[in-house]
């Protein structure tokens, strides 16, 4: 078998986190009863006209700046014409001729190697509605709630060579968009979608091979599988002397395979032309400067700052900044209670463990910084020990309870009265002469057993340090 190189470019659609739609005042909130988040404008009623949401432009510019793009200061919208019931105007307002951002790049790292993935362009457009098939009535229903939700499409250069690079690029892109607050990037809700353009060629070949476009992956894992599957499929075809057809394919993650949707011959002619209902967007130097000045701290800067400002190890900083949500909780909590290393530990160890158990992403964390800060406070005030703290944290993680109230209600506070503790320990010493003997004969382990027994008697509500001290004292 010859050796092949895989060439991959991505088209990523990200729904922007604006409150209202791109051309009307309807909410962009996910969900909602079908056809309740729409109006005559976003349902394309005759005679209605679009009015551009300025925030969409600002978000697109912010994304472009973060991806090192050149901003098109005189840009326009175009109409992409095609018939489909989820598209009530029968055209999508998008950008073809003058997209808002062009020619940038994003640095990725795989296996210790750094590389720049080029960004061809970023353009703004409106989302379409959703078709829902009703198997009982055997009919298709249309939900226009998503119609007119603003999107940016980020088109990469064909610079990626493996599934690892694709995932690294997507992870990086997702973090950038989340850090900017431009998109929440929830793949399950469709607010981040990626189409893969993939071709293979013999190593050393100058020309690209014939590419296919793969759609319908709804997780990074599915994307990795789809890349791998399509790479194999194409190489197999070439090895058998067959030709690759330029086509759009649909990934079926359950079957771990893809199906041809339409070939290039069936490709629609979208008859793009400038949208006459909108005036060109003029982005002044002042406006651009304003947006530049408002750019939030991105991940790389944040990581550096964590190491210096909070004095936490690079390893911690890497994991915490790996999610905007985690970083936000970290900073808010530290602002309330200090103790950055302590807070970092709760996020890196317990939070990660619970997320994994619940099969959740950090973005879905629901507990508040305030309650985590209270928990840290309880520990440092000596109110609860770490064993109890872990229990309490599970409750915080699950239902964001107030740990102070919880500890009080459940009576979990440590007994700090030395007199009570001393009398319990005296009883334990009396009841375990063998262990006492062992300890006196130099077996340090025996002390641990006695601490454990005391703790058991105290129902966990004692400071192990204190028990240790009293035990040694009495022995």
């Amino acid at each position, binding site marked *: 078998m010859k050796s092949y190189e895989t060439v991959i470019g991505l088209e990523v659609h990200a729904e922007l986190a604006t409150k209202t739609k791109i051309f009307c005042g309807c909410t962009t909130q996910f969900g909602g009863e079908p056809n309740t988040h729409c109006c005559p404008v976003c349902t394309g009623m005759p*005679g209605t006209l679009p009015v551009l949401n300025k925030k969409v432009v600002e978000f697109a510019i912010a994304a472009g700046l973060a991806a090192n793009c050149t901003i098109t200061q005189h840009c326009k919208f175009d109409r992409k014409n095609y018939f489909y019931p989820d598209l009530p*105007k*029968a055209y999508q307002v998008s950008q073809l001729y003058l997209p808002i951002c062009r020619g940038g790049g994003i640095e990725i790292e795989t296996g210790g190697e750094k590389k720049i993935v080029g960004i061809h362009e970023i353009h703004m457009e409106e989302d379409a509605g959703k078709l829902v098939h009703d198997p009982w009535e055997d009919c298709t229903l249309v939900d226009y709630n998503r119609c007119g939700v603003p999107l940016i499409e980020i088109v990469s250069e064909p610079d990626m060579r493996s599934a690892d690079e694709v995932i690294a690029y997507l992870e990086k892109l997702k973090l950038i968009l989340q850090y900017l607050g431009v998109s929440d990037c929830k793949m399950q809700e469709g607010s981040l979608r990626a189409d893969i353009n993939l071709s293979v060629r013999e190593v050393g070949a100058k020309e690209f091979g014939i590419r296919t476009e793969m759609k319908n992956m709804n997780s990074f894992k599915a994307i990795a599988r789809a890349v791998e599957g399509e790479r194999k499929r194409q190489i197999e075809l070439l090895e058998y002397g067959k030709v690759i057809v330029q086509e759009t394919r649909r990934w079926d993650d359950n079957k771990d395979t893809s199906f041809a949707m339409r070939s290039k011959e069936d490709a629609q002619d979208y008859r793009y032309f400038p949208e006459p209902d909108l005036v060109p967007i003029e982005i002044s130097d002042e406006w651009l400067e304003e947006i530049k000045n408002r750019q939030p701290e991105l991940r790389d800067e944040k990581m550096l700052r964590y190491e210096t400002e909070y004095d936490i190890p690079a390893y911690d900083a890497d994991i915490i900044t790996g999610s905007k949500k985690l970083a936000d909780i970290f900073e808010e909590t530290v602002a309330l209670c200090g103790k950055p290393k302590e807070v970092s530990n709760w996020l890196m160890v317990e939070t990660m463990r619970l997320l994994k158990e619940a099969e959740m992403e950090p973005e879905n964390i629901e507990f508040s910084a305030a309650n985590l800060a209270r928990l840290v406070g309880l520990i440092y005030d000596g109110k609860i020990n770490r064993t109890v703290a872990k229990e309490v944290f599970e409750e915080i993680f699950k239902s964001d309870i107030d740990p102070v109230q919880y500890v009080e209600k459940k009576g979990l506070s440590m007994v700090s009265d030395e007199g009570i503790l001393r009398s319990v320990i005296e009883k334990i010493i009396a009841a375990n002469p063998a262990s006492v003997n062992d300890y006196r004969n130099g077996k340090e382990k025996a002390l641990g057993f006695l601490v454990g027994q005391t703790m058991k008697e105290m129902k966990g509500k004692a400071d192990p340090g204190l028990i240790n001290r009293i035990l040694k004292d009495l022995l």
Partner: protein
Amino acid sequence: MDITTLSALEMGRKIKNREISVAEAVKAQLEKIKVSDASYHCYITVLEQEALARGEKVQKLIEAGEFKDSPLAGVPVAVKDNICTQGVRTTCASKILYNFNPPYNAAVVEKLENAGAVIIGKTNMDEFAMGSTTETSYFGITNNPRNTEHVPGGSSGGSAAAVAADEAFYALGSDTGGSIRQPSAFCGVTGMKPTYGTVSRYGLLAYASSLDQIGPIAKNVSDCAAVLDIISGHDARDSTCVAQGAYHYTEALADDVRGMKIGIPKGYLGAGLDDEIRKSILAAAETFEKKGAVVQEFDLDAVDYAIPAYYVIASAEASSNLSRYDGVKYGYRTGDFENLQEVYKKTRSEGFGNEVKRRMMIGAFVLSSGYYDAYYNKALKVKAIIKAGFDKAFQKFDVLLGPTAPSTAPRLGESLSDPLKMYLGDIYTVSVNLAGLPAISLPCGTDSKGLPIGMQLIGKHFGEKEIIRAAYSFEQTQTGNK
């Protein structure tokens, strides 16, 4: 006395002075329509009950001191059927929208209502405003009240005919390539297409978005100015509506053209123009000179390319704008289909008329890949050249004068068989839309058959006041005008 022959402003004054009640005005108008619309068929929908109820309400509001600054309060108005009226069917004279009830009012309808207007009905038009005769309407033809054997022009033929027949005190039309001015000329009334961006298009069912503009059709220049005062102005819902604040067009109604520089494009008097119309225009030029204006002929650039450029751009936009009429959400849907493709195909085949189909096909073609540069892009370049030509002319002139149409109203049934010839009839009007300029058409005589001749005055960008002043001054020299 037949009060329907009053001008809109005269009627407004009489209502204000309590000489005539709104109810009387509305009833008289409805009565007139009842009597004469069988002959002319200006209306697709007459709002009898609604207008009577609205009339009562407006009368009470006037008595309560409302509408003090509104000279047209209580005066019935006709609205072209491509302008959305909430809960009142708005058909664009097409089968595909035969049952479409908009859930909202167009911006101009809101403005009219805020000024105390009473909408009396929705007027006939060429289907989707595509045509020059009002013969492409799904709801039947409109006859020219000056001579029922002839067309009223189009596409706002119903509005122009209604005003000419005193079936409306004034009307709203829309003008994409001459659709207000040409029927006004054919019916012997006054119609004005404002500068693109003066009047909000929100609620106007789009034909060609970059060219469409709503404007008044009325019995005289003063009425047009008064209506424009009401309907113009900024609207946040239309990004292309760039007008700011109020313009007070009625302030320009002065009989004074002394020193005004009027240019006549030579190309507007050349081959293809009816001799009687040429004479009328030259006579009008003389009238202006007598009143102290300076009139001069000049060469306007790219006149010959205006029609092809217009039909490419307008059709391209139309092909996109009309794609939403697919039978899925509202309007006509074919009764019999097997799958989605068939819903689209049959609905649109059955729902649209030939002229609309022709333009959508031209539009789809000129936008298709491989032809875009050769047609659409080239047309945009021509548009820019035409605009530059006008800009150059307006460095020298205040107002341009010419005919509105190369002929008077053709006989019924003559035009549709030869669409290319029909398109050529738009020669003097389309370049104004391509350049986004204001223009007014007003009567300047009749031909030997007794059919009205219209002359056109074109202004520079937002130069409505100059053309209103010129038109008003000319109007004062004409007998028989109201």
